[in-house]
């Protein structure tokens, strides 16, 4: 059963140096506050996993928390580059960043395999691209038709962190709107932390809601606003200005360092 904890305690208990850590949320419900807490606690040597590393991963990378990034699209959506990510890849600042990159379809299926207790998943993808030469995929033949498809290895993070709208006092979690790959990311992980907008007495059913029962979640932390500047449907909108404003901070090491000191 999930334990209700404060965010600093939950991060301290669940996220360890050297871990493979996935913070998921497809534009919506990005666990930004948890990412900031990981920075504050000075975690190092993390393998960061995320389909769409955006501003919070730019911050984690710039802060030197990450040794490696496993991802499929790293940008500031609708704005442009992640300059801390680019600085790490192009100029090894503050540290070299090992990359393992996939397509979205590949990453999604890696989580599916992880959630399913399978060592791999199969998809129609990667063929003819330069990705296979630079990442971890293998060809696999259909035993019935002989057709050659692509196998991707399962992703099983040490810990997955997501943000959701609500949990009840027993630790059952409810999220709705665009729910992305969060269910798979939690079910694939050895441990999981869910930050939520609020703890309620009862999770009344909602159209489109995904429920993660308490017994598959490790910890729940109430963090109102914990997805800002991304959004939490039904609670607050995406702060598009903050995404645009990040561009200037991210472009400049000094500006970023000043941001980091204020965090």
């Amino acid at each position, binding site marked *: 059963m999930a334990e209700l904890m404060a965010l600093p305690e939950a991060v301290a208990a669940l996220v360890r140096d050297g871990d493979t850590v996935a913070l998921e949320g497809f534009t919506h419900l990005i666990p930004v506050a948890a990412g900031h807490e990981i920075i504050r606690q000075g975690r190092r040597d993390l393998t960061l996993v995320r389909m769409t590393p955006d501003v919070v991963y730019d911050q984690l990378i710039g802060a030197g928390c990450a040794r490696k990034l496993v991802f499929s699209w790293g940008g500031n959506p609708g704005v442009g580059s992640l300059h801390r990510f680019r600085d790490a890849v192009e100029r090894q600042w503050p540290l070299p960043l090992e990359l393992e990159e996939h*397509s979205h379809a590949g990453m999604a*299926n890696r989580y599916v395999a992880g959630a399913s207790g399978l060592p791999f998943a199969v998809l*129609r993808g990667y063929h003819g691209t330069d990705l296979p030469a630079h990442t971890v995929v293998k060809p696999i033949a259909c035993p019935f038709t002989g057709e050659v498809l692509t196998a991707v290895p399962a992703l099983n993070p040490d810990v997955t962190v997501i943000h959701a709208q609500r949990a009840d006092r027993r630790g059952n979690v409810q999220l709705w709107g665009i729910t992305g*790959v969060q269910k798979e990311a939690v079910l694939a992980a050895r441990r999981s932390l869910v930050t939520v907008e609020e703890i309620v007495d009862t999770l009344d059913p909602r159209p489109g809601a995904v429920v993660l029962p308490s017994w598959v979640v490790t910890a729940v932390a109430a963090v109102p606003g914990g997805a800002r500047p991304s959004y939490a449907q039904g609670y607050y909108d995406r702060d598009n200005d903050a995404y645009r404003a990040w561009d200037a901070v991210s472009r400049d090491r000094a500006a970023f360092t000043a941001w980091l000191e204020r965090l």
Partner: protein
Amino acid sequence: MSFSADDMMTVAAARALRGRTACFVGIGLPSVAANLARRTGSPDLVLVYESGAIGARPTRPPLSIGDGELAETADTVVSVPEMFNYWLQPGRIDVGFLGAAQIDEHANINTTVIGAYDTPTVRLPGAGGAPEIAASCREVYVVLRQTSRTFVPRVAFRTSVGYGDGPGSRAALGLPGRGPVLVITDLGILAPDPATCALRLTHLHPGVTVERARAATGWDLAVAPDLAHTPPPSAVELAALRTLTKGAAP
């Protein structure tokens, strides 16, 4: 009403969606074009966003492919794995819209790196949904500004396959969709030569010359024998576009 080259590009992309059922939409210009199409010639066009929204009807173009209005207005929202596995992969989607940092003569696309992979000059965002959109949508439209830096003889990294090395490549790779049938730019429209699969100029936008289009292309751009001229945006199209983009992200 006056219009920019980008306006023309967007309007041309919206027009190309006429008669299509479902369109897989990336963020930025493709999203604007697809939403413009819904407001002009294609009111029933189904917009499918890789974030999971199927049949989204946003009132303004979203800044990201996961904006809240997409979920709120959609016929249904599915998980990201379901989107790629059940909706994109089997070839249900008529048109996939892609942008690019680089495109080559065979319409192969790079959104990964400029320079060597391990020591890049510019690290780009990466693949996202593009490789499988390029493989599995029945047709692909590529939309990008045409310059000799973006239209290159050979992409530095093949993120998504157009026509590979030429005729037969897609079939040999087992790619089910037809590939990029249109490349819509701020200067005109390119389409693959049926014999060679090499992109050639089929349409010029108003005020653009063949010479200018060729100068903005990093290879020796061929011109279709029946080169046409794109009609300028109509007042209706431009008005719809202005309504759509008013106050939206750049």
